[in-house]
């Protein structure tokens, strides 16, 4: 995903002279092409993320389109007030790209995990919060972000994530992408867990359970039309994210659901629990530890259908 980001931002920077890329001292060699093609519009801002966000606000207030890029916990947790005041309060079009999100860097410990940041950011007025699922969605969402007049947060993985799409999909923030039809269960997946959702649906299909799958890439604004549809049609609706079940996609959908008069479906929130990961492991093992595998999820959804 990060290579797709680097290629796409290089292409977009060449098309739009307002694009300026700020990096928090990461991406060694990742931006060589950008630096060669747009040498005056790439800045390594050092290990000083809060200053980087403030600088981005100053660039945007001057009519430029800054894109800030660094590892998610340092871009988000450390800079919450800068994001809130400098970007959201001033309502400036700055794009924040957090890399290595969720449990991508599981082996580096919880300092490098981000399983709460979407919940935190989703609270901020004006901010669009999105988690593209693969390299194609990274390209599409980055283009959409640079066309938006709002500040945008894009949560991406690291490298080597499988592609779900075979080409760039039609993309708009707040409009989920349907990938598989189904009427018993709907799985709404945000981010790089989308292939897990598809594999879960495959397993359920073998048991005669029809599961719809959506790339529910945008947490804010929520695609309430799709929510209204799936909560009308399917007995169980599951949210899936590599993020705490508190505050993220599951939290957002639960809030929406609480405002509906007669919900017909049951909501199952699949994500990480309200705890830090202390297990020394890689991303796949961390997902397994938290039950974010097709086998575990299909079992959970079967049980939910049986008791709904």
């Amino acid at each position: 995903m990060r290579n797709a980001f680097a290629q796409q931002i290089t292409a977009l920077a060449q098309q739009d002279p307002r694009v300026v890329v700020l990096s928090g001292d990461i991406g060694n060699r990742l931006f060589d092409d950008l630096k060669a093609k747009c040498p005056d519009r790439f800045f390594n801002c050092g290990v000083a993320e809060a200053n980087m966000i403030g600088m981005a606000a100053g660039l945007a207030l001057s009519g430029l389109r800054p894109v800030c890029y660094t590892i998610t916990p340092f871009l988000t947790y450390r800079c919450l007030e800068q994001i809130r005041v400098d970007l959201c309060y001033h309502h400036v079009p700055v794009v924040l790209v957090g890399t290595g999100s969720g449990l991508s860097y599981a082996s580096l410990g919880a300092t490098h995990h981000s399983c709460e940041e979407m919940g935190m950011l989703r609270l901020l007025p004006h901010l669009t919060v999105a988690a593209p699922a693969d390299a194609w969605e990274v390209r599409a969402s980055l283009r959409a972000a640079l066309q938006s007049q709002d500040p945008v947060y894009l949560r991406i993985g690291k490298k080597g994530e499988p592609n779900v799409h075979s080409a760039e999909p039609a993309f708009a923030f707040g409009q989920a992408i349907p990938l598989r039809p189904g009427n018993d269960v709907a799985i709404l997946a945000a981010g790089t867990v989308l292939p897990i959702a598809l594999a879960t649906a495959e397993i359920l299909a073998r048991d005669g359970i029809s599961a719809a799958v959506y790339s529910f890439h945008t947490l804010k604004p929520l695609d309430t039309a799709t929510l209204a549809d799936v909560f009308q049609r399917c007995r169980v609706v599951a949210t899936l994210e590599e993020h705490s079940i508190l505050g993220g996609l599951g939290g957002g959908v639960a809030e929406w659901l609480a405002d509906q008069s007669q919900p017909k479906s049951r909501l199952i929130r699949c994500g990480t629990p309200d705890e830090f990961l202390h297990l020394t492991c890689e991303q796949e093992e961390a997902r397994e530890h938290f039950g974010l595998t097709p086998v575990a999820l299909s079992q959970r959804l079967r049980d939910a259908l049986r008791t709904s």
Partner: protein
Amino acid sequence: MSPSVSSPAGPGQTSDLGLVARQLRLRLVQMSHAAGTPHLGSALSCVDILVAAYWNILRIDPSNPRDPNRDRFILSKGHAASALYAVLAERGFFPRAWLDTFAQHGAPLAEQPAPHCAPGVELATGSLGHGLPVGVGMALAARIQKRDHRVFVCLSDGECNEGTVWEAALFAPAHRLSQLAVIIDYNKWQATGRSNEVMSLPSLREKWAAFGWNAIELDGHDLGALTAALQSVPNASGQPTAIIANTIKGKGVPFMEDDNNWHYRIPKADEVTKAAQALGLA
């Protein structure tokens, strides 16, 4: 420079501007009294910095406050916003009558500035440590856009407690942002204590110089010295400029000077009268 950006109002005669500064100070006392707002001592300490910048230095056009070629002035110590408002009104950015409703319900001028709340206000401040990073971004934008405008950011000494100030202070010299200047209103007080005791600020001049800035220390109530220092921006050395302006909190009103109670105290009617007398404006 764009022809629509005016020259500074000055060069003002220092004696004339001294009167302007005294009138502004009385206005701030009256505003604090009328609105019941604190931070009067903080506002009074930065008046001369603002007068030197807005009358003698800044290339701004009050009739075209969004001109992309304008010089930027960020009052990062947003709790002193009344001083900025009074200066902007006096320079013609908006009617002086707006000052009469300062901080009142529904009025344009909030106690601390909101984004784009009034012509001439560049940034919503109030949370300390934001102005300089944003100012660095504005100076960087000027370079990218090949504009020659300058960016001035006024900080408080207490604000220099914030880590973001020093992050920005490290970045700007590395990129030779010579069109950027900070002015530190060094009144030796922060909200609840002597700033040199709360944190190890001395020597501010040496600290900024060590960070790579063209650091100048001066009397922050000397309009001539302030003007000369501000005129040196952009510095020919390529360094950004840091002006350490030694000031007195509550300056101009003897019973408020260097008394930190006036960080929060609000003057009563008889104190407004006494302030007017002390300022020679009764």
